[in-house]
């Protein structure tokens, strides 16, 4: 077999083409994997969990058995607050070999984030030992979220202080401010909560949640300013029900009834069975003295959520506006019944949750 033989050359060329083709295929696969991974990392660094989810889905389609990607998907779901989904994904993760440790940690962080604050000391020690590690950031994040879920604002603020000591990318700084705002809200410090959100909006004017939370915090005390923030949000997210509803509510608070009605109509065009929007639309109609229209919106809301307190309140309002004395009494009676049910349920819950140590202390016999 000589190299100069034409057939041999053809075979060799064929082999080379195949090798190059295979190499190209492998390179393409690997480059794609790296690209997806970088996309995921960039999205996570920017706390853009939706984008991270998309990239992860694509990655898992290409590598359905990747233990690393599965775990990352579970972690991403948890960090978004989708705890049930995180648990579901975590159950699919292998707990053998090199993944055992990371999966165990993720399970622990999931419990922590759900508000189970027990046994967090070893995690604290880890954060002390490796304060700048990525794991420490994830642990702190879960500690803060868990503290907030457990309504322990002091604990949350304590971990936030550690969080803020880290060199944080802008997205994490914004998130820290939003957590701080939540903690201050829990402490009843509305002004501090607003200040946190203002700082977050200053840092990231495009941040939807920061501006939305700020608008919601301002809605009661400074509805004018809230309306301005919601207007900005609406311009950027014109069909977002989570913006349209508070915008309508704030506009109603300001007495700008026609604009409130318009925002609600837009929302109801997107989600015709949005109960809160139907109630709000009915109330706006009542205020515009459009009782017939109000009845239409409110009866629809009642059909969808007959036991919803706000629906009943609005129905009482409607019955008063239309002079239906018997209906006022009927809805008030229903309201009383529902409130009694809620009180009874609450009593049961408290009774079940009350530890035996809370039993009244018996006076010692003389």
């Amino acid at each position, binding site marked *: 077999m000589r190299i100069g033989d034409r057939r041999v050359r053809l075979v060799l060329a064929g082999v080379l083409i195949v090798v190059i083709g295979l190499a190209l295929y492998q390179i393409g696969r690997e480059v794609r994997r790296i690209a997806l991974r970088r996309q995921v990392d960039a999205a996570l660094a920017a706390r853009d969990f939706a984008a991270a989810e998309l990239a992860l889905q694509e990655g898992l389609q290409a590598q359905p058995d990747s233990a*690393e990607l599965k775990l*990352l998907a579970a972690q991403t779901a948890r960090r978004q607050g989708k705890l049930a989904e995180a648990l579901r994904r975590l159950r699919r993760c292998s707990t053998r070999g090199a993944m055992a440790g990371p999966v165990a940690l993720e399970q622990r962080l999931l419990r922590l984030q759900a508000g189970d604050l027990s046994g967090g000391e070893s995690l604290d020690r880890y954060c002390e030992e490796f304060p700048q590690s990525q794991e420490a950031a*994830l642990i702190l994040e879960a500690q803060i979220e868990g503290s907030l879920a457990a309504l322990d604002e002091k604990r949350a603020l304590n971990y936030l202080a550690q969080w803020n000591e880290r060199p944080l990318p802008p997205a994490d700084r914004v998130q820290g401010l939003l957590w701080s705002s939540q903690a201050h809200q829990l402490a009843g410090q509305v002004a501090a909560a607003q200040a946190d959100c203002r700082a977050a909006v200053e840092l990231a004017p495009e941040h939807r949640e920061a501006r939305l939370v700020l608008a919601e915090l301002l809605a009661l005390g400074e509805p004018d300013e809230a309306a301005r923030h919601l207007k900005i949000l609406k311009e950027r997210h014109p069909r977002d029900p989570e913006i349209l509803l508070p915008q309508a509510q704030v506009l109603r608070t300001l007495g700008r009834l026609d604009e409130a009605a318009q925002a609600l109509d837009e929302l109801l065009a997107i989600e015709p069975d949005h109960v809160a929007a139907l109630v709000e639309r009915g109330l706006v109609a009542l205020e515009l003295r459009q009782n017939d229209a109000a009845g239409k919106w409110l009866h629809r809301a009642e059909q969808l959520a007959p036991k919803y307190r706000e629906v009943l309140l609005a129905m009482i309002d409607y019955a008063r506006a239309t002079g239906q004395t018997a209906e006022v009494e009927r809805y008030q009676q229903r309201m009383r019944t529902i409130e009694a049910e809620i009180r009874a349920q609450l009593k049961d819950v408290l009774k079940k949750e009350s530890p035996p140590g809370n039993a009244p202390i018996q006076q010692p016999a003389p």
Partner: protein
Amino acid sequence: MPRPTLPSSSNAPAQQSRRWLGALLGAAAAIPLCLAAWYFFQRQTPPAPRAAPRSADAALPTATPAPAAWFEDATPKSGVSFTYRNGEEADRYTLLESLGGGVGLIDYDRDGRLDIVLPGGGTFDRTGDGIHGLPTRLFRNLGGWKFAEATADVGLEQTGLYTHGCAVADYDRDGWPDLLITGYGGLALYHNVPGGNGNRRFVLATQQAGLVDPLWSTSAAWGDINGDGHPDLYVCHYADWSFANDPICKQAASPSGRDVCPPQKFQPQPDQLYLNNGDGTFRDATSEQNIRGDGYGLGVIVADLDQNAQPDIYVGNDATANFLYSNQDGRWDERGAAAGVALDDEGSYNGSMGVDAGDYDGSGRPSLWVTNFQREVHALYTNLDNGFYRHESKAAGIAALGRQFVGFGTGFLDVDNDGWLDLAIANGHVLRHPTIAPLRQRPVLMHNVSRGERRFFQDAGSRGGDYFQLPRIGRGLAIGDLDNDGWPDLVIGHSNAPIVLLRNAAAESEHHWLGVELVGKDARNVAGSTVTLQVGSRRLARFVNGGGSYLSSGDRRLLFGLGKDGQPGRLSVRWSWGETQHWDGLQPGSYYRLHETKPAAERLAPPPVVNR
């Protein structure tokens, strides 16, 4: 703890890939590398956030320059020097000191000018249970915005009761207005009697009248609620606080670590209804009239709310539902919840303080107005004319004020005489070291304007003058025409800060007015009467109310703003006992006395200024 490896931080796979890639790249041509690089950069997501567009925030509207002020502070040259003392300097942090004091307007000498009566408050011992009342003071109106203190001259120099409020009515129908002072542990009924040399003085008549009330009384309202012609009395009571029942309420923001407790720490004390026997005495009709005992009563108004010519009673309660006692032939039916005036629009009770009733929307019906605590909206309950009300604070622009105010004294008044009722509110916190809303809060003036076919209240603080720009601890507020110029003035009290007299300076505008004073036969009490005046195509309705505001008593005369071109047409009075009379030919720019027994209205000349 061993350091776990998390996928997000793992560099190992990337390093492996690079080695493998290097080997392949060595074997393969440069083209695939270029292709890969192209592919790689095509798929990269730009991580850098977009630059922050500042234009949206920068485009926020800016404030417009303030126009001429409606009110000017007339206190400095008036001769009225008074500060309500609540005793907080003893640092006892009592619930008692949180309420403050009211303002009373009373023409006690019937010289045609409203005099000012001011409950003095009190002090506490730093230790022990001592509560010491300060005297109620009276400033006689000399005209021309000059006042002279007449406390001792009229016999009000006694001390004893730690005082809060006042209510004015001619309880014995002798034609002279009498005075009721409320406070901690008692009432003080002062009978207006001749004082020699044509003067008048007050003598204490509490015991003789049977108004022995050991509870903590706040606001009170007079009105002939059983239709016998004699003014009856509704007294609000607050809570069962005493030094024997004085828990410590912690407050981290306070230097002492404590602050005034909320009323919920105490039991509410039941309000009382006293019916006038017609012989100078009263009897307690609280139980026979089903007066509820579960409210922390702070504000009360007597008005014919359902327009059935029978005065009703509305009570603003702190931290509990408000009460509406609907008068059905002298029997009382508490129907606040059913009528829609007990709770707010979220179905929650509020911390209610001041109350008033007025026709703000031109409907001819009295709507109810209530000032509330922080994190709540002051409540405007629009009268729907079917026995029901609707909480319309949002639609009417009240909610736009926000929820940072703790509102007290208040009332409807037509500041600019445009024929539409505006609102004034005194604000200020009850805590000494509040954290949610400030201790001192700006007073609020809301102008009633048109918005399409609706009426809408716009914050008009900038037009109110300097007084409305500064934060204060406001409490009592009385509305009255102190200089008889047809433009409503204000007297506003503050806790531990001087009283302020605000002269309505909007009189320079071209708007006209008409004032009326109703006089029933044999000095019959007229609270609950409705006066309507035809002005062009509009029919203005004003109501003679008993009580109102917070711990205060205002001018019982009625003012009609006529606007620029308005001419008064037929004026109709539906007396609180159901009869209706009409008067025609009234001229703008004057007060008229409308006497039940006289077909002709008596035009009142402005009283002369007293030189003193």
